[in-house]
C-alpha cells in the first residue's frame, strides 16, 4: 500500500475565521511573532498496488470533485515516502 496525501487549503483571498480564532489564542499561550494562521485539511488515502500516473490522476479528480470545493479551496496531492 502507498499513502497518497491530499492537502486542502482555503484560497488565500477567502477569509478563514477558524484560523483567526486559533491565531487569537496564541498570545494567551505566550506565543509571539505569529502574524497569521490558516487552517486546512489533510486526507491520507491508502492506495492499493502501485501508484501510477493514472492512479494519481484519479486522486486529483477525487480531490477536485469531493475533497475540495474549487470555488473556495485549493488542493495539493503528493505521494508520501515511507521511511
Amino acid at each position, binding site marked *: 500500500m502507498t499513502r497518497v496525501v491530499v492537502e486542502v487549503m482555503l484560497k488565500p483571498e*477567502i*477569509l478563514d*475565521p477558524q484560523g*483567526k*480564532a486559533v491565531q487569537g489564542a496564541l498570545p494567551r499561550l505566550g506565543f509571539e511573532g505569529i502574524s497569521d494562521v490558516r487552517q486546512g485539511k489533510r486526507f491520507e488515502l491508502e492506495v492499493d498496488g502501485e501508484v501510477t500516473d493514472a492512479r494519481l490522476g484519479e486522486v486529483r479528480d477525487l480531490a477536485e470533485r*469531493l475533497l475540495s*470545493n474549487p*470555488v473556495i479551496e485549493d488542493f495539493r496531492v503528493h505521494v508520501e515516502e515511507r521511511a
Partner: protein
Amino acid sequence: MGVVTFPGSLDDVDARRAVAIAGHEPVTLWHGEPDLRGVDAVVLPGGFSYGDYLRCGAISRFSPVMAEVVAAADRGLPVLGICNGFQVLCESHLLPGALIRNDHQKFVCRDQRLRIENNRTAWTSAYDSRAEVTVVLKNGEGSFVADEPTLDMLEREGRVVARYLGGNPNGSLRDIAGITNERGNVVGLMPHPEHAVEALCGPGTDGLGFFTSALAQVA
C-alpha cells in the same frame, strides 16, 4: 411539493408544515432513494446533513436523491434550498459561489429583515418588487462568497434574490442572503422562511410567500 430529508436535516418537518399552510400537498423525499415521487417542486431543508462533515452539503450532493434533483432542476423543476439546502445547491453547482463560516465566528439566531431583490423567480413571485420582509436567520456557516466577476454577473443579471437589511449578520459579500440560477427555478436562501408562516410562533407570516409563489408556478 417534495421536502428532502437527509441524515441530519432539522427543518424538514417545519418545511413540510409551511408547504401545507401554503396550500400544497407535502411529500416526504428520502436522501437514499433516487425517486422524486412525481412532485412539482422540491425543498431542500435546513439542518446539518451528514453532520456537515467535510464541508456543509458536500456529502449530500452525492446522495441518490440529489442526482434526481439536479436532473429535474436542469429541466426547470422549482427547487428551493434553505440554509443547509442552499449549501447543498452550491456544492451541486446548481448555484454559483459557496457558503463559509460566519466572519464573526459565532452562530447567529435572530429575526432578520430582508429585501426581496428579485420577485420573478419561481419562489418569490408572490412578493412585491423590493418588498421588505422579516424571517428567521440561524446559521454558523452562512457567509456567501464568490469571486468578483461572479458577484458582478449575479448583480447584472438580477440573480440576487434577497439581501440582508439592518446590518450584515454573517459577512456575506454584498449582503447577499439568497440567489437564483439563470432560469429562476432554483433559489438558495440562507434565512428560513419556513419558520415565519404562522402568527403564533416566529416573527410573523412574511415567509409564506416563498411557498405560495411556487404554488402559482405549478398550478
